[in-house]
Each structure stands twice: as structure tokens, then as C-alpha cells.
């Protein structure tokens, strides 16, 4: 009974596997140190297309319905809430706004829990997918305000992944897109180019 199973061959196999793994690890290390990934980045360019605004934060994404947002902001302004550069609620998907002469309307976000996660883009019936599909590539392009803020110094929690997913979806539909990083110190702003040179929204993705 003592020699029921011989461990000789098993030990041989396992020790060989360990050797191979060590070789793999060393090759991996050398290979990774020399390998450089080429990242192809789209360039901003002038266009006659109109921007459709989106906002990405905490791996979530929303379409910014500018008609509703501007109407709500105008109503708040009439009621005097928007005066003295105060931040006021816009009654739209948890967004807050601030109006000033230099920046136009700035948008702030407090809570994104009601926003759809970016994975919803893959779902056929989701509102965000419909919003992206409604963009007419001959007349419009998508412009993303992407929050770069993340707590763990990783892309998780920022809007990067949501932006990349949406951009890839739009690319398949030949829709151009552009973006800019935003955060609470430098919030998303929508204004006219005549207002300030910073109010320029250009597509940077060729979409083909």
C-alpha cells in the first residue's frame, strides 16, 4: 500500500512546469521592458457639424439635452436664483449650473447614481444607446465632457471608460466625436465662440 502512487513522475512534471514558468516570467519581463505600444490619437479639426453634448462621470454617461438645460437655466435666471455666480439646480439628471459672463453656463454634478452605466450602450433598448444612434453624422457630432477625477489614481471612477465605449460605438456609425477633460475645478461649460475662444467644441475623431 505504501507505494500505491509513485510521486517520481509527478514531481518530475511539476518541477519541469516550474522551470517553464520561470522562463516565461523572465521572457515576459524582458519583452515588456522593450515593448512600446503605439497609441494613435485623433486630431482636432474644424467642422460645420453641430455638437451634441454628453457627460461622462463615474463610469456613467448622459446626454445633455441643451434645450431643456438652457430653458431651466433661463427660468432660474428669471427667478433671480442664478445671480451673483451662485450654483443652482437645473432639475435635469442631478446637474447644477452657474452662469457668469466669462464662461457662459458651467455645469456641476453632485450625484450620478441615476445616470445609466456605460455598459447600457451595449443594450439595444437603452436610452443612451438611442441618444447616440439619433446623432446624424451629416449634421452633427458628439462632444463629451469627461470627468478625469478618480479616487484611486486609476481610470475606474472617472469617465474615461464610458467615453471610450461611446466613442467606439459612434465610430462604427461613422459619427465624429470630440472631448475635453473636466473636473469640479474646471467644470463643463457650454457657451458661444463669440463669448470666449475657450468656447470651442471640435471633433477630434475622424469616425471612419
Amino acid at each position, binding site marked *: 500500500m505504501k507505494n500505491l502512487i509513485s510521486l517520481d513522475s509527478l514531481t518530475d512534471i511539476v518541477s519541469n512546469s516550474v522551470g517553464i514558468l520561470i522562463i516565461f516570467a523572465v521572457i515576459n519581463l524582458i519583452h515588456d521592458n522593450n515593448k512600446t505600444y503605439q497609441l494613435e490619437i485623433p486630431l482636432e479639426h474644424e467642422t460645420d457639424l453641430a455638437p451634441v453634448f454628453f457627460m461622462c462621470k463615474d463610469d456613467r454617461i448622459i446626454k445633455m439635452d441643451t434645450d431643456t438645460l438652457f430653458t431651466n437655466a433661463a427660468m432660474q435666471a428669471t427667478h433671480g436664483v442664478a445671480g451673483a455666480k451662485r450654483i443652482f439646480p437645473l432639475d435635469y439628471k442631478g446637474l447644477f449650473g452657474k452662469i457668469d459672463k466669462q464662461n457662459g453656463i458651467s455645469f456641476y454634478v453632485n450625484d450620478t447614481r441615476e445616470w445609466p452605466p456605460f455598459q447600457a450602450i451595449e443594450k439595444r433598448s437603452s436610452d443612451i444607446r438611442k441618444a447616440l444612434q439619433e446623432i446624424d453624422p451629416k449634421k452633427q457630432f458628439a462632444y463629451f465632457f469627461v470627468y478625469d477625477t478618480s479616487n484611486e489614481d486609476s481610470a475606474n471612477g472617472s469617465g474615461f471608460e464610458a467615453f471610450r465605449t461611446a466613442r467606439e460605438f459612434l465610430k462604427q456609425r461613422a459619427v465624429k466625436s470630440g472631448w475635453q477633460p473636466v*473636473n469640479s475645478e474646471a467644470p463643463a461649460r457650454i457657451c458661444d465662440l463669440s463669448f470666449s475662444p475657450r468656447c470651442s467644441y471640435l471633433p477630434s475623431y475622424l469616425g471612419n
Partner: protein
Amino acid sequence: MNRATRHARYLPDNKLEISLFPFLSIFLCVMGVLSFINILNSFSAPQKIEMSAQLEQGYKVAYQIFNLPDGVIRVPPIKHLRNLQKALDEEGKSILEDIIAQREQQIRRLESYKGPIKQAAREPEVDDILEMLHNIRTINELALKANYLYEEFLLFGIYPNGGQAYQKIRDVMTFTQDSASITVGLEPLDSNWTLNLKRHTDQPQGK
């Protein structure tokens, strides 16, 4: 060899038997750890990246700016400047010589940095941004004047929490004429992507 000796060789003797089980156990542990390290390495190891423009034409060269929470790392292109210099007149050569020297010093400073390269990020000063934009414009204009196919543009890589520095540079760009003709591209970067300095210094010019 007589029969007795031969017989003795094959007798079940009381030789020292070593159990292989502890070895097997250790080997399996090592194997598990190595597999885990290999998998972890493939997911989290810093990947060196180099940014280039999509559909880039051969003569367009990127001035890379990596935007990190602590500031920016600027990686100016120097590879093709010596060739451009040969095509210029004396005045142009001297202007470009100053810019090349400045850029080589910048790259040397980055290369000599001890520790993780991302920690070399510095808060962008307005004067530095203006000088950088002016130099890019000067180079592009010199190349155009000499009918030499060379154009520099800005590529921004934005790391998580790195948008502040980018906004600062773009703000400066709005009020200087030097940036009017400079093309810009930007891309979000993952925190485990790191820049590759070696490719920029593989062929140091003029040394």
C-alpha cells in the same frame, strides 16, 4: 561477478527512502505563485506607450505632453530636426540650434530622473508654455519657408486627475497667436501606461 554478488544487487535492501511529497508540495506552491505573478504582471505592469496621430502623414511630428495630477511631462521631438536644419539658411540654422539644444537638455533632464518617470511631472508655468508654443510655431514656419516637409503638433495624454494641467495649457493657448496654427490631439490614458523616453533618444542628433 559471481552469482552471489549479482543476487545481492537485486535484493530488496534497506536503502534510504526520501519522500517526494514535500518537494511536490513546494513545487506546486512555487508554480501557483509564479502563475499568479505572471497573470498579475500581464494586467498591471506599466505599458510603455508612444503617442502618434491617427492617419498621421509622414512629415507630421508629435510634441507629446503627458498630463498628470502633479503637472506635465513634456517630450519634445528632436529626431528629425537636424535634417531640417540642413535645409535652412544660416539664420534659420542658428535659431533651430538653440531650440534643439534646449530640447536635448529637456530630454536629458527627464532621462536622468531617478525614480518613476511619472514623478518627474512639473506644474506647467505660463512662460514655459508660451515658449514651447513659440518654438513649435518657429519650427513650423522655418520648415515651410525652406519648403521642407516637417510640421509639429501637440498631442496631450490625459491621465486620471490630470485634466487640471491640460486646462491650464489650453487656457494659455487661447490668448496667444502662436497656437493658432498648431494642431492638437488628446487622449485619455490609463494610469498603468507610462511614457517611453528611449525612442526619443535612440538616435540623438548632432552628437
